């Protein structure tokens, strides 16, 4: 997707072989593999239930299983806390995860970069889409107040931010983005049941492609979202829990600047 000689800034780094780095879970001593888990079985608490829990953990591959607690969580349900040794060794050197590369900019720098490089306001439209009525994520990013002491996008003089709120239909979101000549579309998906958040997010990108609007930046956020998943669903970037507004603003501005300088073509435009 990138032009020769100008890799986009969030492409995976060039394949650089890392040295082998075997790791195991760390409990009390290095490489002891000790882990803890908790689960419920739909049977009344009893010595048989305890044995069932032990075998359940063994079947998951745990050794030296200790059923630390068996609690009756109702007449026909038992809650277990279990410790065991996981004989799993991973080579950490082989693990690659795409990460959003973010400039370390604060509020001041972001406004300065927009003013001096783009010479115009950046327009951002955000919404919770589909059935999702929980605006806490999109509010934290867009509303003036922001999140964890980091001001929201509305507080940026060089960003024009529109928060469309909850339960916004995909088509209506794109319609509004078009009217406002938006540069970026922020989508928040908090609530999910049986992966409906994924289907809905993917449907938005599909619709954007059909309408010739995939050239906009599409950013997905939510507690079950990471960059990898967002990329798989067709978004430009994904942000999970704890993301600050300045990180989203920094990402959007960095990409817009990169495009303006011809360093990175927009997806769907090459």
């Amino acid at each position, binding site marked *: 997707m990138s032009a020769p000689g100008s890799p986009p800034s969030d492409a995976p780094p060039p394949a650089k072989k890392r040295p082998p780095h075997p790791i195991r879970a760390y409990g009390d001593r290095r490489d002891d593999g000790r882990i803890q888990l*908790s*689960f*419920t079985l739909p049977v009344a608490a009893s010595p048989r239930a305890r044995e069932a829990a032990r075998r359940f953990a063994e079947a998951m591959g745990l050794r030296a299983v200790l059923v630390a607690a068996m*609690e*009756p*969580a*109702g*007449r*026909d*349900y038992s*809650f277990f806390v279990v410790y065991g040794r996981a004989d799993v060794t991973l080579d950490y050197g082989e693990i690659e995860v795409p990460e959003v590369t973010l400039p370390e900019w604060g509020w001041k720098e972001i406004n300065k970069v927009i003013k001096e490089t783009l010479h115009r306001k950046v327009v951002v439209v955000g919404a919770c889409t589909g*059935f*999702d*009525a*929980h*605006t*806490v994520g999109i*509010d934290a990013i867009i*509303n*003036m*107040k922001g999140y*964890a002491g980091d001001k929201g996008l509305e507080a940026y003089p060089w960003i024009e931010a529109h928060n469309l*709120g*909850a*339960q916004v239909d995909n088509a209506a979101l794109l319609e509004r983005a078009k009217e406002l000549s938006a540069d970026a579309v922020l989508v928040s998906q908090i*609530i*999910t*049941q049986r992966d*409906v958040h994924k289907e809905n997010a993917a449907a938005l990108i599909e619709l954007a492609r059909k309408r010739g609007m995939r050239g906009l930046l599409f950013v997905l956020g939510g*507690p079950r979202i990471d960059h990898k998943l967002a990329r798989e669903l067709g978004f430009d970037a994904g942000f999970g*829990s*704890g993301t600050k507004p300045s990180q989203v603003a920094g990402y959007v501005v960095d990409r817009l600047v990169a495009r303006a300088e011809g360093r990175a073509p927009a997806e769907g435009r090459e």
Partner: protein
Amino acid sequence: MQMLPIDPSVVEECRDLAARVADGVHSFIDRHTTCSIERTVLRAYGVDGADPDGVPLVNTCVERFVKTGHAGCGIAWFLGRALARGAADPQEAAEVLAYAPETDDGEGGPDLAAVRAALAPHTARALERIDRARACRESNRGLLAPSSQPGTPLKYVIVATGNIYDDADQARAAAQAGADVIAVIRSTAQSLLDYVPYGATTEGFGGTWATQENFRIVRAALDEEQDRLGRYLQQVNYSSGLCMPEIAWLGAVERLDMLLNDAMYGILFRDINPRRTLCDQYFSRRIVARAGMVINTGEDNYLTTADAVEAAHTVVTSQFINEAFARRAGLVDEQMGLGHAFEIDKSLEDSLLYEISQAQLVRQLFPRHPIKWMPATKHKSGDIFWSHRVDGLFDLVGVATQQSIELLGMMTESIHTPFLQDRFAAIKGAAYTFTAARHLADELRWNPDGKVVARARQVLADARDLLRVVDREGLFAAIARGVFADVKRPETGGKGLGGVVEKTPGYLNPILEALEGK
């Protein structure tokens, strides 16, 4: 419990201001009806069922009269005319209203006396139905223990599987673990539906559809379980959104104990038209009052969008306004579960002191009200161990300040709708805290020069100042300006305005008359 030293004249001024704010809107409420109010009237008369596309008969009827511009006469006027003309019962009469080739224009034919006479036995039957449900609830309550730990907050948990049969199983398990109150969370889209879905349902989004049949299924499970446990189990659902009064009626009929019902929540958080919500809340609360249910108001939500330190006074302001509206609908204090929440940023020094201050203040301002204490949601993370500790402090404040109804915090808040084990862990933790701190309230003495007292006085003074502003501007204008929860809602914006209809001079609604005691 020692009281915080606050100025009673400020409290009195808040109540007077809130009364004036509510009165300012009531002239509008009294002159209007809504399609959901009229559908509720039909439901009260026993009209039931849906067409093969799932459209309830009550919707088909009312929409027809909205279209012809006659809804302002009241659907009862037309139902009564169909009865006077020979329909066997209200169901048959409603079918005539919905499907007769000609829509009745209300002219000629049976006169008011004949219509009233035709409706009178059915009006009596409607009221009997919810009176009987109330009597049945009160008799069950009389026979059983009131809660798992009397004298401490009721333990309220939510179930939200999407499948009503799983919900019923989870409700039983929660009750066995010690829960007193079970709320079935609604599917997130439901508040914006302008009809009540029909029948038992097994798929939902983030919750389960509220239907009359689903209410029955959960109540039956709780009835059976409470007899085994020897203590009464309370059922909760949501009378909010575009079908506020209809859900209130269905809840009354099916013996629900509590309904989420707020005069302003739908406006602020679901972008429902302000006029629509304020009319709907009145009729729905008339039903709640008669049926002896408890409302839960939604002020906790303000703190999920606005900051809990800066906006604490908006919660108190809204509680006074909710109380004023509830009084005008005939509720007694014991039916007003005013809401608030443990939502202050957990990284703030002395956040616990501010939480105690607010909880104690609310307890004192509304002494007979079953205050609803809501857990942290905003400042939580996927670290369930940390989250469980936050809930421990929340439980401690709840018991120490004698909150009435406590929605237990879940360690998996912000991850998923609660697993069975999450509910178990929350109930077990709360039971420990409530036992350990059972009489803590009796021991607490407030430092008159300390942070808790200063904060309570400040919040109350700020609430009074805001009430003065709302009184000056009027409630509609204040909401439009974004006074509550940082959300701005213009009077003619939002969903459902089309369903607000001005009453004609001859407007007829014998159900409302009976509920108003006329």
